């Protein structure tokens, strides 16, 4: 799934566009525990979480996570923005809470798999 397209469709604000442009993910994991996020992170996984902290940035860097979606309209921690730009991560912020954001992502995911616009 194309990340720029996903951000547009779930109404998320893009903080860092990542590089190279047009990066995609083939897996999404949502969670609010560092251990869970660490376990499920991968180089093709979008992490959706309410945790905006230096620890999340560290997990993303260690596991080469290509994209993070923070929820609740929060401002990302400076460490996350810095790391995202340095590592080429796609960083977006959804104004919706974790549950609603997951619902939107899931809808987009199904639409993309079934060829809907």
């Amino acid at each position, binding site marked *: 799934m194309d990340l720029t397209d996903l951000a547009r469709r779930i109404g998320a604000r893009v903080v860092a566009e990542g590089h190279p442009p047009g990066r995609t993910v083939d897996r999404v994991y949502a969670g609010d*525990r560092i*251990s*869970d996020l*660490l*376990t499920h992170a991968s180089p093709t996984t979008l992490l959706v979480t309410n945790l905006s902290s230096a620890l999340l940035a560290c997990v993303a860097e260690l596991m080469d996570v290509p994209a993070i979606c923070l929820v609740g309209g929060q401002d990302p921690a400076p460490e996350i923005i810095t790391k995202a730009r340095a590592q080429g991560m796609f960083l977006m912020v959804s104004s919706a809470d974790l549950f609603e954001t997951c619902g939107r992502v899931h809808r987009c995911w199904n639409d993309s798999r079934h060829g809907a616009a």
Partner: protein
Amino acid sequence: MSRFSHAIAGGDCRRAGAASRQLKARLQAAGAPPDAVRRALLAAFEAEMNVVMHARGGRMDARLAPGRVDVEVSDVGPGIPDVGRRARRSSPLRKQRVIREYPAASASGSVVPRRSRGGLDAAARALGLGAGMGLANIRRASDAFAIDSVPGGGTRVRFTIYLKARERPG
């Protein structure tokens, strides 16, 4: 064969992950398979975070040999009572009860809250910590795992990752 040793500061999440990053660099430089690197980093970061959360400080020592990496993470902390049972039975729902007080590093939001008797407090949970999954995750990710802990005398976690892709069952 190569070795490295990295100090781990207790209490400050902003500095967490430095030892694991060094391990990652060494493993990638050695050409380790991505799956093995991933498992090693999962175990290393959990062990490093245990030091950050529960101890005044510690260190990570790693020995990279042909086909394997042996990692030891030791700390100067409160130790873990009944450590064998905890390593076997850690679960996401189990409360951590081994936290003791230690000096706070600063007043920033990235400092692990120190006051806890009977479990991590709400601020630690807000950082996504304290799920009680750390030891179980290390054990699951590793090819060999051992932990020694003396109440009041610190904890030493050792694990080995074989540098080959794990065979998938079935």
